[in-house]
């Protein structure tokens, strides 16, 4: 009857699995973003403005 293996996983287990997965993932998402990323974006922006300045 159950051709797909997942069909045999009951909903309670699937739900529990999903919650664990999200909990694990959210913990990383909620970490504070290191400053280096914002610095990198600022550098990218400034480089671009610099280039435009030189070109005009």
């Amino acid at each position: 009857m159950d051709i797909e293996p997942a069909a045999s996983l009951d909903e309670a287990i699937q739900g529990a699995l999903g919650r664990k997965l999200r909990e694990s993932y959210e913990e990383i998402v909620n970490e504070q973003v290191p400053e280096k990323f914002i610095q990198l974006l600022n550098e990218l922006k400034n480089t671009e403005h610099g280039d435009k300045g030189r070109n005009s």
Partner: protein
Amino acid sequence: MAAPDFEQSLVGAIPHLRAFARSFANDPARADDLVQETLVKAWNSRDSFTPGTNFRAWLFTILRNVYFSQHRKLRREVDDPDDQYQNSLAVQPEQYGYLDLADFRAALGLLPSDQREALVLVGAEGFSYEEAAEICGCAVGTIKSRVNRARNRLVELLGDSELKSGGSAANPTAHGSRLVKDTARG
């Protein structure tokens, strides 16, 4: 997208890029390197983003491309990059406060990387199967079957009664050793 909007969207997506990157590189420093390179690529190709489409999906596609182009280079230097992922997992669990989440992560780390990726995209990020398929450049059916196999394998590794009872706080040591035994048996 106008540059300030683009920048703002990019900043907002960084936490998700960092989390997604960890499904490729378990070592946080390596994962963050991957994110940095993704941000540079995204910034430089921002004209190719189609407004109105899913921005995060666009970024995730770039991150994957960055990863797989590095991965091909890496393959010449190390025998098996997946082994590296698992070796780095071996030193991870103590960093986390509660063992059952660490156990879950260890089990996730044992999955083939394509299954882990599909599960994270659909189950954690909440992408539709169609969106996940687009990000991974494969058929929708392939994503579905990867997600199914990932779920089944996790249940095998973690034990359905543990999952149902919502964790293993009562006896973390026994839980940890059972995971190891199950892995050896599997």
